[in-house]
């Protein structure tokens, strides 16, 4: 039933109900509802300005919707911050790369594990015993991600010096380091060439397959979206206009109108 075989799509992991978000007079989202099931790859598509990124920002607590409910792992929440979202297992990447430019690839990926590190300031200052052990454990975990993403050779390079495609990969690595249950990817393939896109697709599918991570992604490359996603939700002007499997969405008249325009 799925594109990648081994994994099983499970129950609903995240459900957004009737979300409305506006900035002053601009309505970014109005009455959007959909759900994301465990282990699936869920694409959010739509023309520019449709409210896709706003939707991700709502899910990870960066924007607070005026109306609506977000139910994650059976717990409804309305007003939580990004920190709470992160600690409950939601990680994300950004449309325009948001890496820590002054730090190396390794350090960037290690920041993804900060929530899992517990030793306090005094132990850290000593860097001895439990603090050192903790650091080594997490270094090993970070190395597994570095191996997985095939970025061993740039481990110690400051990310500011890396080419764009690799920066995108490091950002994915930082999000993966948090071992999220739900991974939000905001245009993971924007601005990449075909080869880099293929690599990124492979990584996304492998993450989904090997770690069982649920993925919600925004992407403009329709070929990619239709190939890798299990279900697609389509937004236009802040409203949901279609929701279903890639094939259903592809044939939907409203979607074709939204993308190609319609004569009035």
């Amino acid at each position, binding site marked *: 039933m799925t594109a990648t075989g081994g994994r099983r799509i499970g129950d609903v992991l995240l459900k957004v109900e009737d979300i409305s978000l506006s900035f002053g007079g601009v309505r970014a989202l109005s009455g959007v509802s959909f759900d994301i099931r465990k282990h699936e790859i869920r694409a959010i598509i739509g023309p520019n300005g449709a409210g896709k990124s706003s939707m991700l920002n709502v899910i990870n607590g960066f924007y607070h919707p005026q109306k609506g409910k977000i139910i994650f792992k059976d717990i409804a929440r309305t007003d939580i911050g*990004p*920190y709470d979202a992160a600690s409950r297992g939601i990680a*994300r990447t950004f449309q325009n790369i948001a890496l820590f430019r002054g730090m190396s690839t390794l350090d960037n990926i290690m920041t993804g594990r*900060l*929530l899992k590190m517990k*030793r306090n*300031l005094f132990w*850290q*200052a000593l860097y001895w015993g439990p603090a050192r052990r903790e650091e080594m454990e997490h270094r090993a975990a970070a190395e597994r991600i570095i191996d997985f993403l095939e970025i061993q050779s740039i481990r110690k390079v400051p990310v500011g010096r890396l080419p764009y495609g690799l920066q995108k990969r490091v950002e994915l690595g930082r999000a993966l380091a*948090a071992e999220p249950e739900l991974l939000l990817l905001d245009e993971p393939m924007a601005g990449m060439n075909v080869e880099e896109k293929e690599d990124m697709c492979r990584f996304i599918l492998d993450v989904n397959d090997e770690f069982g991570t649920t993925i919600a992604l925004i992407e403009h490359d329709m070929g990619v979206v239709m190939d890798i996603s299990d279900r697609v939700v389509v937004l236009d002007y802040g409203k949901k206009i279609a929701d279903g499997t890639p094939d259903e969405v592809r044939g939907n008249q409203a979607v074709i109108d939204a993308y190609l325009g319609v004569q009035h």
Partner: protein
Amino acid sequence: MLYREAGQFKTSYGDDQAIFPIRQDRIGVAIILLAAYLAIPLTASPYLFTSILIPFLIYALAAIGLNLLTGYCGQVSLGTGGFMAVGAYAAYNFAIRMPELNLLVVFLLAGGCAALVGVVFGIPSLRIKGFYLAVATLAAQFFMDWMFSRIKWFTNYTPSGSVNAPPLSLFGFAIDTPAERYYLILAIVTVMALAAKNLVRGRVGRSWMAIRDMDIAAEIIGIRPLRAKLSAFAVSSFYAGIAGALWAFLHLGSWEPLAFDINRSFTLLFMVIIGGLGSILGCFFGAAFILIVPLALNQIPTALGIPISTAMISHLEFMIFGALIVFFLIVEPHGLARLWALGKEKLRLWPFPH
């Protein structure tokens, strides 16, 4: 040729994350520490101790404090002088009101007081950034200046407003010769510099740098800006407080609030910028540059026997020193520490660059 890491294999993550992963660096540090602990005390004159080595070490310590805050966490501060003052006066009050306390405990308590004050003055950083934060921390500087000259309790009601450090002793040994004071300061600075290095290469340091580089992304991966920024203010002020206590007790001996005025804050900020933001080693470079270059410039004409008046010497000193600062900032805006790192990078390949 000598500085090659070929053949040095790291077999554990611990080796790879060591402070000095390269053997030659470890040898170099061992030599410097030996020199600092053995060779210098045997040969140095009291002048060298009191006017160069002691202030250099204390400045370096305070610069480490400021660098943790500004270089690592990205929060500009002009209040370091004020936090040093808190440390100095807290140490004074603990020492005279509870004379039975161990000197090291007094210093720790002084650092703790400064850390608390630092956290209070760090609260604005949650809302404002950059130059505006610098202005807000200036409030700390002026408030401390005012508080220690106006509220007489802090100076134990001395009529002149100037206070004297009590006679110092540690575990029964009196500390009064310059060499003894130097040893005490050197030990404290060694331990605290190591602790700072440990902090910045671990979890805490990464959360500070994440806040510095991109606070929004930091928040989204689960760093609480409140906690990260205030912990940076606390640790930074702790360092500044201890440096202030050392400055007052072991360098000045008797002092008034003017010893910790705004100039002190500026000097430290310059040290951090010239030494290298975001580098512990850079703090030592910066302190050495700002403190020792003017002294050296002052000595050169007399040493060479060039007959110029002392007034002229001091004018020249200002001019050459200013030109040097501009020169170094143009050559390497990231400070002497970066220059040092680039030099090491070159040395790895020298003399066969291909």
